[in-house]
């Protein structure tokens, strides 16, 4: 019984449910933050400290800030009335479908333990320098493409933010 896993798993799921159900936008953002942080903790447990750092820095630090800023910019008092879909059938259908999908995904993974490489992890698994080694040697092209993508996003963002498009 991996207590570490269970604690953060429960926190994450509870925060997720909170995120998708609360009426106002800002509490939802905070719920999302909680999800991010619990996942970061789980990454640390999974011998991926660098990924955890990235999770906190990028998601909690950049994306969430951006979202909160936009909430601040766009939220007018009238908008608070807005919550979920009016149509109850829609909500039920969505819920059922999601449930079904969850079951499929989870149960489809039954027996996945056989695939697992149960040998001991190599020394230094999850260390940044191994990560960097992989990133800049084997996956260099992907890295460059990602940087081009970010450039494009940057240009797109700047253009879209103009006063008159």
């Amino acid at each position: 019984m991996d207590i570490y896993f269970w604690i953060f798993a429960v926190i994450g799921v509870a925060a997720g449910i909170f995120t998708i159900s609360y009426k106002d936008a800002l509490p939802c953002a905070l719920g999302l933050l909680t999800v991010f942080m619990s996942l970061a903790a789980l990454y640390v447990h999974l011998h991926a400290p660098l990924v955890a750092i990235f999770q906190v820095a990028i998601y909690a630090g950049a994306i969430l800030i951006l979202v909160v800023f936009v909430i601040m910019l766009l939220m007018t008092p009238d908008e608070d009335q807005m919550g979920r879909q009016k149509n109850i059938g829609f909500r039920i259908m969505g819920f059922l479908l999601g449930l079904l999908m969850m079951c499929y995904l989870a149960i489809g993974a039954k027996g996945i333990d056989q695939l697992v490489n149960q040998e001991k992890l190599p020394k230094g698994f999850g260390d940044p320098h191994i990560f960097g080694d992989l990133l800049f040697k084997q996956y260099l092209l992907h890295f460059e493409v990602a940087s081009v993508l970010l450039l494009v996003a940057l240009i797109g963002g700047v253009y879209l933010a103009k006063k008159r498009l």
Partner: protein
Amino acid sequence: MVPMASLTDYVILSSILFALGAIGFVVRRNALILFMTVEMMLNAVNLMLVAFSKFRADMAGQVMVFFIYAVAAAEVAVGLAILIALFRHMRSVDITKYRLMKW
């Protein structure tokens, strides 16, 4: 030695988070919250990747996660910019008002 949670547990957790994200996407009306649910789905996928990376002792999973971060960041930036531009026209983030692309 702390007993490790098996891969199955991580898969189940990941799928729960993904399903939650999907449900939220269908059910919510606020465009911003829709964004947040999308981020939640992406994170569920990240969790799955990292879990597989550890249980198969392959670092490639973590590198993939890194790229997903880059893409997610770019997507949020551009998406929120679009949302703001839309807001200037529609004066609302209620997606039921964004009906121009219908038949």
